[in-house]
């Protein structure tokens, strides 16, 4: 009963926040509301008994996406000041109204569609739990991700690699200018928080086998750590080791593909683990994926190809035009 009241409070706020985050006049405020929306969605995921998703939403969906959009916003604003840009001012009222009507019709159709769905769908819970003991892990979500639907996760890690390849092909990324000399507090924070983040990432990886967690959540923490490094001005040495960086980025896909090939040889089935060893194979894949995911997410924040350590100011001024 109380939880129903909670739903009735939470969801209108989510919907209102979604509207404001997309239609607020001030873009900066809109992005902040978008980040807040992500956090409230994480609460909604907990309410829907999906803690794995809540972890990922808070770290990646809200935190990292918000950071990405904010840094893009700052970059664009800085460039807009260098040249006069004309705002097209949006589209005229008639089109706005007709699109509004279309959206309302879409909303009505969707509502009808979701309400028409069965109230108690049978779903795949039974099937997932039936073979859980053989899957090698006890967390059903991890079992789905890395055993039952392992192929999808292989493609997902591939998508991560594709994204970073795309970003690197399009742009040179400049590290945020950071002068730590007048911000001793930031350095102290980093000294405390970075080891904790790395430890927590490893913890997430290990615990994913039997409790909410897993490689993706851990990777999100590592990505956050990398972003913190960049913001603190300490990332230059990490980002300049280009060969090591590339090795880390492809490690996830590489190891996953190797496991696919090896299991094909061992059991004749693509990604079919030999019985009893599923847990070990999953841990191998997840460990490699953890590194790749962390590096990819952190480097997405950089927003481009690292400039490769030829000196600060020259790179920064040329990368702005790149």
């Amino acid at each position, binding site marked *: 009963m109380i939880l129903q009241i909670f739903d*009735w409070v939470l*969801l209108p706020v*989510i*919907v209102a926040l*979604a*509207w404001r*985050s*997309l*239609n607020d006049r001030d873009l900066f405020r809109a992005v902040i509301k*978008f980040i807040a929306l992500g956090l409230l*969605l994480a609460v909604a995921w907990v309410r*829907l*008994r*999906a803690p794995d*998703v809540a972890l990922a939403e808070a770290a*990646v*969906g809200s935190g*990292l*996406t918000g950071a*990405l*959009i904010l840094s*893009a916003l700052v970059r*664009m604003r800085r*460039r*807009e000041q260098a040249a006069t*840009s004309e*705002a*097209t001012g949006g*589209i005229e009222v008639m089109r706005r109204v007709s*699109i509004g009507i279309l*959206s309302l019709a*879409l909303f009505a159709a*969707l*509502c009808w*569609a*979701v*309400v028409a*769905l069965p*109230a*108690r*769908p*049978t*779903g*795949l*819970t*039974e099937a*997932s739990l039936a073979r859980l003991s053989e899957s090698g892990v006890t967390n*059903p*979500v991890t079992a789905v991700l890395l055993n039952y639907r392992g192929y999808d996760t292989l493609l*997902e890690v591939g*998508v991560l690699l*594709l*994204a970073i390849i*795309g*970003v690197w092909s*399009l*742009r040179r990324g400049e590290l945020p200018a950071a002068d730590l000399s007048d911000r001793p507090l930031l350095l102290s924070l980093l000294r405390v928080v970075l080891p904790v983040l790395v430890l927590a990432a490893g913890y997430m990886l290990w615990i994913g086998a039997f409790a909410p967690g897993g490689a993706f959540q851990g990777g999100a923490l590592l990505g956050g750590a990398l972003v913190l490094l960049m913001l603190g001005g300490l990332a230059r040495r990490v980002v300049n080791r280009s060969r090591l960086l590339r090795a880390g980025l492809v490690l996830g896909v590489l190891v996953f593909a190797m496991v696919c090939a090896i299991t094909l040889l061992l059991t004749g089935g693509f990604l079919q683990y030999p019985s009893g060893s599923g847990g070990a194979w999953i841990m191998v894949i997840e460990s490699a994926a953890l590194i790749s*995911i962390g590096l990819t997410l952190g480097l*997405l924040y950089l927003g481009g190809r690292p400039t490769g350590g030829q000196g600060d100011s020259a790179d920064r001024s040329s990368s702005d*035009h790149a």
Partner: protein
Amino acid sequence: MPDADHRIYLLAGAALFAIGFYSLLVQPHLLRRIMAVNVMGSGVFLVYLALGAQTAGVIPDPVPQAMVLTGIVVSVCATGLALVLADRVQAAMGKVEPGDDAEVADPAVPSPASGEPHQETPSA
């Protein structure tokens, strides 16, 4: 708990999708459009997870949860790439609200449509 009714989450998901859809079409600014697509995705996730939570069983259906988890990661990858593309659009065309009749100019040629001082030579 298994008797909890999560129908309202389905409606909220539909609302988020419609809101994102409207904003995607109406807002000219590229960053707002990227956020709108993200909101549409969140609406879909709401519907997915609400359905998963309503399945009969001791635990909610883990398959939608796994798919939404994948979806969130793919979403952030797409957002990252889209932001870089938007940055390239701004570099090539000088503004971040392309509009309907804007052509993608050849970056090597000053674009007559924008009328601003041409400021880009692309790097490799």
